């Protein structure tokens, strides 16, 4: 049986990188009596799939991973059992059963929304946002193995709004093909006013992670349609 967990990650655990977080969950499961299924082969490992990895330093209210457990496991007790094994800062929020052949968490991800908060001086303003909306292209340079690419963030932003003077709310592409990191979005945005992100320390909170439902709407990864 495949199940999908939703969890939040706050506090100092935001400094734990993605690979270590995966190891952390594997060990956590081994401390419970939930029977997780393993791959075959000489060094068997748990069959797990994480949605879009969270950057170091980013907190989140909506993270997901899939894991395969024994069919006879009781889904109603799983959240409590796993929560007993969590370090302070990670909370398991929900678990849902996945239909057979359901796309795994990693491949499902379409978007994520973030709250970006400037805790010292804020470079945000309605004027800046207007500039963003008026511009054809708002860009940053992405360096990859194949060289430098100019990325127009507007192609990857689904929604952008000022919450208050210091807080920006965005919904962006988070699919594995088109993932836009919020820090890169800010970099591109501030460049419109010749400012550098390095001068304005900010926090990032991922609010939730989304997939597309049958009609193409963004829904949280745990809102599984069983139809």
């Amino acid at each position: 049986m495949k199940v999908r967990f939703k969890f939040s990650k706050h506090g100092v655990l935001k400094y734990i990188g993605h690979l270590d977080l995966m190891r952390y969950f594997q060990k956590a499961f081994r401390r419970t009596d939930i029977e997780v299924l393993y791959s075959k082969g000489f060094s068997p490992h748990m069959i797990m799939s994480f949605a879009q990895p969270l950057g170091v330093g980013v907190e989140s209210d909506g993270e997901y991973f899939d894991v395969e457990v024994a069919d006879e496991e009781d889904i109603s007790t799983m959240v409590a059992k796993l929560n007993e094994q969590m370090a302070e800062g990670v909370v398991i929020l929900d678990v849902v059963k996945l239909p057979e052949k359901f796309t795994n968490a990693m491949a499902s991800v379409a978007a994520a929304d973030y709250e970006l908060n400037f805790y010292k001086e804020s470079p945000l303003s309605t004027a800046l946002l207007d500039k963003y909306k008026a511009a054809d292209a708002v860009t940053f340079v992405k360096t990859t193995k194949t060289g430098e690419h100019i990325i127009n963030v507007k192609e990857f932003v689904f929604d952008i709004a000022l919450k208050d003077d210091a807080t920006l709310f965005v919904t962006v592409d988070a699919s594995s093909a088109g993932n836009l990191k919020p820090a890169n979005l800010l970099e591109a945005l501030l460049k419109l006013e010749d400012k550098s992100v390095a001068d304005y320390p900010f926090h990032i909170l991922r609010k939730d992670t989304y997939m597309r439902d049958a009609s193409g709407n963004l829904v949280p990864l745990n809102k599984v349609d069983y139809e």
Partner: protein
Amino acid sequence: MMQYTALPEEVLMSIEKPERYIGHEINAVYKDKNKIAVRFGMCFPDVYEIGMSHLGIAILYDMFNKFEDTWCERIYSPWVDLDKVMRERNIPLFTIESQEPVKNLDFLGITLQYEMCYTNILQVLDLSGIPLISTERTWDDPIVIGGGPCSYNPEPIADFFDLFYIGEGETRYRELLDVYKASRAAGESRDEFLHKAAKIPGMYVPRLYEPEYNEDFTLKAFKPLYDDIPTKILKELVTDLDDTYYPEKPVVPFMKVTQDRVVLEIMRGCIRGCRFCQAGQIYRPVRERSVEFLKDKAEKLLKNTGHEEISLSSLSSSDYTHIEELVRFLIDDCTKKKVNIALPSLRIDQFSVDVMEKVQDVKKSSLTFAPEAGSQRMRNIINKGLTEEDIINGAVLAFKGGWTKVKLYFMLGLPFEKEEDIEGIAKLCNSIAAAFYEAIPKEKRVNGRVNITASTSFFIPKPFTPFQWAVMDTPDDFIRKAGLTKHYIHEQLNQKVIRYIWHEADVSMLEGVLARGDRRLSRVILSAYKKGCIYDAWSEFYKHDAWLESFKECDVDPDFYMYRERKDDELFPWDFIDCGVSKAHLLREWKRAKEGIVTDNCRTRCSGCGSARFDCGICINGR
């Protein structure tokens, strides 16, 4: 929820691996500091991943935290990137748990696992804002106490410590903490406390002892300053390893540390008396834990950590009486739980090859032998009870089991070494390769051919070994001998399948000086630290020239410690410690080494080393 970190966010985001510094790992112990009488900081003076892998600290952390009146927290050396930031921004060194300054603690315990960490001790003290020299400290500073293998010769770092604990930590800390509490309650001075502490068995307070030197700087006398302080300090040890502290819920780090697994210590000590080996002497006598104890701990530890691997730990696991029963149990239990088993330090024989086939991926893994010397003559000198036949037979068994990779460890620069002994290294490697081709028909050779890696380290004489009298080789000797080894390997018929690697010589020189050093070296270490030496154990940070300058500035000759023939009756700086094995026994062994006479191991025949007075372990039940 806000979790406090000593380091501000922008610092944590700008350094490598911030996970090293944030705490809150699974099973980390948090207590209310207002309800605590003693705050103890347990420091491993190296980076987190190394320090977190150390079983001894895990044992003491668990023990201290079982004391209701005590909170034990962990401290590690900040990595070089953070070290720089902390100095620039005046951020004091903090503990992992409370993230509070180390200076707020009552005790700072520092484990001394290798000599090359000595400048890191100064880094820890300095970043904590604790005066580096013991006599300059006040009650505003924690009591700085050292322990671990290097405290068997604490003299080079005597100036930096208030106290050393000689021997195994489980036995006397409770007493020490009680004396401390009483002393503080009575409003006594730091000196008064240290004087009382010096009377607790196993405790050494360096400032209460005074060395007197001969003109040539050898020791003339080493005496306590007061009549009520012992002249000799007998090491502490646990007599019953089934009736003592053993952590059932060790801390599980977030990041991948060196030992990312459950570690099961099956016994302490070693029945073999290899003459170069300090561990083989200072942990005598061999004491085993019972299989029942170990089975119980293994299950609890796997359950409480969620680790996917378990490893046995001891100096020589094959010598554990119930090794087969224990390993069979683990294989059964762990296969069910999908847990890997690591079996380091198993001798290669039919049993170990059988079990290794079950627990390792034969094609990928390699087999390890530590003959330490290439010729039988030299193996007799060092008392390594391993013959060429043993090695070849073991290798053939392994080849038949499908292994094709063999690693061999040797030492260069052993006492009485001749060129033929070095050539012996090459010949032995060649014989193993030949044995492969002979034992395995062509069509059955898994990877086509055999791979042999010979690696040599340079011999460093250590205190409390029969070789403590030995003259050490110079770096030039070492390099010449490594060259000779290479040359002889190239001469072998099967040289194509033999790879040779050797360790650097400069670092070995410094280790050689510090290992058998005296109190005069404290100044040199301080000077090297002031020149920027830290992380000397990491070759990329080791600054040989800075060390050489420091010796010169302090007018201390490093050659004195390495290249001097020591007389049989020389008084050594560490002789005030009684590790159980008598100096008479060590000297007898040194003489037997010269003649190439082998001494039996404890199980075959007791050689009367002196440890029987502890009245435990193999000395009373072994033979």
